[in-house]
C-alpha cells in the first residue's frame, strides 16, 4: 500500500538521486566498521600473545554495535521527518499538495514511509557488519531479524515525533530542534527523572533512617520504573540483553530502581513497543488533524 503512495514514490526518487544519501550510507557504515574494528582489537588484540579468547565477548560486541546503530538512528530519523512538512511549506509546494484530492493521511504516511525506508536502507547496508558476530556464534539469524524489526518499529515511533514537530512549527530549523529536544527528553529525560526521584526519595529515607545501606533496600519507585517503557533506548537494550542471554542483568538493574510486575519484566520489549507505537499512532493522528485544519492566516 505504501508503495502506491505517490508522496512515498516521489520522496524515494528525489532522495536516491541526491549525493547526501550516498554520503550518509558511507558515513554510517564507516562509523559502524570503525567501532567494530576497535571493539575486536580491544577484545582479541590484547590476547595476541597466546591467552584464550573469550568468544562470549563477541556477544558484547553485538550489544555495542546494536546500541551504536540505534543511537545513530535517533540522530538521523528526526532530521528526515522534522523537515517533511515544513520543508514543503518553505519550498512553497505545500499548497499545491493539499489542493489535490488526496487525504492528509496520504501525505503523512508517505513522508513517514519515506523516512523509515531510508532506515531500512541503512540497516540492511550494515547487516554485513552486524553479522560478524556470527563468527563466534551466540546470536542467530532470528535474533538479527528481531533486532531489525524492532529497530524499524522504533524508527516509526521516533519518526512520528519528528512529524508532529514538523506540522507544529513554521520552519525546518525550529521543528528539527524541537524534535531533537523531544527525543532527548524521551531517551535521557526519562532516565534522569527516575534517577532524580531515586536520589530524592533515597535522601528522604536517609535523613530519617540515617543509614545509607538501609536506603538501598528501601528505595522502591515501584511502577514508576514503567516510565522507561516509553524510552526507545531502554527497549533496544532490553532486546539486545535478552538475545545475548543477559536478561537477568537487565532485570536486576530495573529491580534496583523499582519493583514492577514480573509479566512486564518478562515482556518488556513487546509491551514497550506496543506502548510506543500507540503513542506514534496518536501523534500521527494529530498530524493528520493539523494538516486537515484550514489556517486562518
Amino acid at each position, binding site marked *: 500500500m505504501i508503495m502506491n503512495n*505517490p*508522496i512515498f*514514490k*516521489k520522496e524515494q*526518487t*528525489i532522495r536516491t*538521486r*541526491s549525493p547526501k544519501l550516498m554520503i550518509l550510507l558511507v558515513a554510517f557504515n564507516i562509523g559502524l566498521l570503525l567501532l567494530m574494528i576497535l571493539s575486536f582489537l580491544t577484545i582479541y588484540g590484547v590476547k595476541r600473545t597466546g591467552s584464550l579468547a573469550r568468544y562470549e565477548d563477541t556477544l558484547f560486541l553485538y550489544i555495542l554495535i546494536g546500541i551504536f546503530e540505534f543511537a545513530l538512528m535517533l540522530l538521523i530519523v528526526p532530521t528526515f521527518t522534522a523537515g517533511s512538512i515544513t520543508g514543503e511549506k518553505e*519550498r*512553497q*509546494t505545500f*499548497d*499545491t*499538495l*493539499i*489542493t*489535490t*484530492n*488526496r487525504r492528509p493521511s496520504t501525505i503523512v504516511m508517505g513522508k513517514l514511509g519515506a523516512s523509515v525506508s531510508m532506515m531500512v536502507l541503512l540497516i540492511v547496508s550494515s547487516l554485513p557488519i552486524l553479522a560478524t558476530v556470527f563468527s563466534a556464534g551466540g546470536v542467530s539469524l532470528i535474533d538479527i531479524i528481531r533486532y531489525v524489526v524492532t529497530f524499524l518499529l522504533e524508527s516509526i515511533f521516533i519518526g512520528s515525533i519528528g512529524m508532529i514537530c514538523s506540522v507544529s512549527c513554521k520552519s525546518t530549523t525550529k521543528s528539527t530542534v524541537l524534535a531533537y529536544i523531544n527525543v532527548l527528553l524521551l531517551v535521557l529525560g526519562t532516565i534522569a527523572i527516575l534517577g532524580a526521584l531515586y536520589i530524592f526519595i533515597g535522601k528522604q529515607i536517609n535523613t530519617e533512617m540515617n543509614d545509607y545501606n538501609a536506603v538501598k533496600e528501601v528505595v522502591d519507585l515501584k511502577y514508576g520504573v514503567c516510565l522507561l517503557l516509553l524510552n526507545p533506548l531502554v527497549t533496544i537494550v532490553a532486546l539486545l540483553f535478552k538475545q545475548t542471554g543477559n536478561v537477568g542483568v537487565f532485570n536486576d538493574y530495573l529491580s534496583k530502581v523499582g519493583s514492577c510486575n514480573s509479566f512486564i519484566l518478562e515482556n518488556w520489549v513487546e509491551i514497550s513497543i506496543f506502548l510506543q507505537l500507540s503513542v506514534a499512532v496518536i501523534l500521527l493522528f494529530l498530524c493528520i488533524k493539523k494538516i*486537515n485544519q*484550514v*489556517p*486562518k*492566516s
Partner: protein
Amino acid sequence: MVEIQELCKKYGTHIVLDNMNLHIERGQTYGLVGPNGVGKTTLIKILAGLLEPEYGRIKIGGKETTTKERRSNLKIGYMPDYFGVYQNLKLYEYMEFYAQMYGYRNKEIKNVIMEQLDLVHLTSKIEENVDILSRGMKQRLCLARCLLARPEVLLLDEPASGLDPRARKDICQILHHLQEQQITILISSHILQDLSKMCTHIGIMDGTKMVVQGPVEDILRIEEEAKPLCIRFTEVNANLFRYLESYALIQDLKVEGTQATMRFQGSEVEEANLLTQLIQNGAGICYFAREEGNLERIFLQITKGD
C-alpha cells in the same frame, strides 16, 4: 459558476475583505485588479480552500461549499503566485507525481500528462529537471499541473508575474485556448494590458471592497469624460501649445515632448474644426485621434494607487 456573497476576511484586527460579492458565469474569464495588499491573493486562496474566511457564502457550480470541500474539489484548479518545484525530479516525473495525487490510474497517466504538456508547449522538456527550467517554463508547467485534474474553475494568482513579453504572450495564448473550452477563469494580475485583452469581465478592488466590476467593455466606458484626444506634432512648437491651452473646448492638457493629450469636450465636427485650425496655423501633425479606453487609467482613477 462562482458566486461569492458577503465574504469577510480579516487578519487580526485588519479587515482585508469586507462584504465582498462576486459572480462569475461559466466560461467567463474574470480579471481581478487592485493595488498591492488589497486582498486579491486572499480572495483567491479562500476560493481555493486554503484560507478560512470570517463569514460569507461561496458557491461553486451552484452549490454552496465549505472551505475544506473547495480544497479537495478537483473542479477547482489553483495556481499560486509563488510556487516551488522539487529538485532532482524530471518534468515528466513531476507531472506523474501530481497525476497520481489527482487519482489517475497508471494506464491513464501518460496520455493525460502528454495532453497537458502539449497544451503548454513543454513536451520537448520532459527529460529536463524541473528546478532548472526558466521562470516562464515553470509557470507553464504549473498551469499544466492545474489542468491535470480537468478543472471547471481555474484560479490563477499573477500567472504572468515576472515573465518577459514573449512568455506572457505564451500564457495568454494558452488561456485563450482554455476559454474556448468554456473553463471559468479567475485571474489576478497587475499587467492590465494583458487583462484587458484576455478577460471578459474585470473587477477592480480598492480598500476592502470590489469598487467596480462588470464586462470589460462596460468598465472601459466608465471613464466619465470623453476619451482623451491625442495629437502628435512633427516638432515642438510653444505657440501651438499656448493656442491649445487657450482653446475653450480643451481641458486637462498634458504635453510630453511632441505629444499633447487632452480632454476635448466638443463633437466630432468641432474636433475636425480643431484639426483644420491647427493645420492652418502651420502645425505639422502626424497623429490625431481619440485614445481607446485604457484599463490602467481607469485603475489609477479609481484606486488610491500603490
